[in-house]
């Protein structure tokens, strides 16, 4: 079987995402809730940006804006030089915070439906689906329905659905939040090796600072609502060694930006 018949990797390489002075707000009844305020940063092609910030600060909102699911109230997002258009962006693959699986479809069809919508033929979609269900370790459950899955399993299906699109811009909203520590480590490993195969531009929202250090090329630390960027912390190869002083330093730097005392044990979660 020709498993490497995917479109030339070069065409799947990520582009550049620029978040330029983006502000956003929601109407909450008569009140206006400011969510993002002058957020600016750039993710270079193929880089992984991990976004951390307090709950409710606007991380998911930022992902929605990046995917073109909503337009920012002010500022601009640019993808490959062009403003992100409201509506369809065929380069995007996104795994949402709630898995958002179609409950009337099996796991397999939930993953395949995205590929079919993006124009893959049936056989192609089935092959890619099988491949990515394997990646998230759910091959056995391809015929199960979402109601039969645990929270973490459903989330993994959502991840597989996003990955299977082989997107040039991959948006992940706390993808590993609902899985146990062991599965999380495994998925992080898988994720790293996937990134080596194709190199999408990634925005990865997480509450887990060690995860951000181990996966990100840089960390975008956001403040309380209305969120702005507190600091952008570059992560180098040597920072990823959890036993190193460099790691401890990045960890405490990030936590400090989040306004948390750098108590390492308390930091592992949240």
């Amino acid at each position: 079987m020709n498993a490497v018949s995917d479109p030339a990797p070069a065409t799947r390489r990520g582009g550049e995402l620029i978040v330029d002075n983006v502000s956003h707000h929601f109407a909450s009844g008569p009140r206006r809730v400011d969510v993002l305020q002058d957020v600016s940063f750039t993710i270079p092609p193929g880089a992984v940006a991990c976004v951390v910030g307090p709950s409710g600060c606007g991380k998911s909102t930022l992902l929605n804006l990046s995917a073109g699911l909503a337009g920012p109230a002010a500022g601009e997002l640019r993808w490959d030089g062009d403003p992100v258009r409201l509506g369809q962006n065929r380069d995007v693959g996104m795994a949402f915070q709630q898995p958002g699986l179609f409950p009337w479809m099996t796991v397999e069809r939930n993953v395949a439906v995205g590929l079919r919508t993006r124009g893959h033929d049936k056989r192609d979609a089935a092959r890619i689906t099988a491949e990515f269900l394997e990646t998230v370790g759910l091959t056995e459950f391809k015929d199960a329905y979402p109601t039969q899955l645990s929270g973490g399993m459903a989330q993994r299906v959502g991840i597989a659905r996003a990955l299977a699109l082989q997107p040039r811009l991959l948006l992940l909203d706390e993808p590993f939040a609902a899985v146990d520590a062991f599965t999380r480590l495994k998925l992080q490993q898988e994720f790293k090796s996937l990134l080596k195969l194709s190199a999408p531009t990634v925005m990865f929202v997480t509450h887990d600072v060690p995860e951000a250090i181990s996966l990100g090329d840089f960390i975008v630390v956001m403040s309380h609502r209305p969120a702005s960027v507190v600091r952008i912390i570059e992560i180098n190869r040597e920072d990823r060694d959890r036993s190193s002083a460099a790691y401890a330093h990045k960890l405490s730097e990030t936590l400090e930006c989040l306004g948390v005392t750098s108590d390492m044990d308390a930091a592992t979660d949240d």
Partner: protein
Amino acid sequence: MTSKEAEALGKTTRPRTGSRHPLQRIGLPLVGVVLLIATWEVTVWLNDLDSIVMPRPMEVLRALGDLVVSGEFWDDVVVSLTEFGSGYVIGVFAGVVVGVLMAEFSVFRATVHPVVEALRFIVPFAWIPLVILWFGTSLLGKTLLVAYATFFVMVVSAAKAMQQVDPTLTKVGRMLGMSRWRLAFAVQLRAAAPTIASSARAAAAIAWIAVVAAEYVGASAGLGVLIINASTSLQTDVVIAGMVVIGLVGAGVSAVIGWLSRSYLSYV
């Protein structure tokens, strides 16, 4: 890990029914029915009621048997079911279409909502005099009345069901690049379908009530007519037999709709 998960899955594949012993599954409902009939029998006996006022269960059963073997009875059943079926299908269809449009287009919603709210409390029975005036005792009149009754139940519940669809599903569809129509039909309507189906089942009861009520007031055939005719000739056993049939047919219709929605819409 995964094999354990698979095992757990195997256990959950067949939820609901089947947890009880078959003897209990048939026996318990039987006990309920027997209790009902016993209460009836005892009430008649204790109060020493005349069979014109309240016949005993056996008398009703006999009347029922006579009805079933007579040809006219089946004609009445067919007439009532036809009135029900035509009106119900039209009402459900129109109600779902309008309800979905209300959920999808805010301009449409703003326009139609006050009209729906104004009309839906004018219960079908209030229309009966006008319906008879306009359509006589024809099938068309009853069909429209039943459609009306069904429509307003369905409009409101379909619009609500559509609005309650998990917004993440819509986002997912848009992220994948689905067209507006595909999103509306293949995602939102599909997600709302089980809720809409259960309202359709509730609407069937209301539609069936409308059929019988309309027949009581003005009709030349149907189960309602059968009952009214029997009551004018003081055949109370036939009246009650007719009521039993109305109950059974209604329950049958409801069961069929429930079965349809389970086999085509449910997830597992």
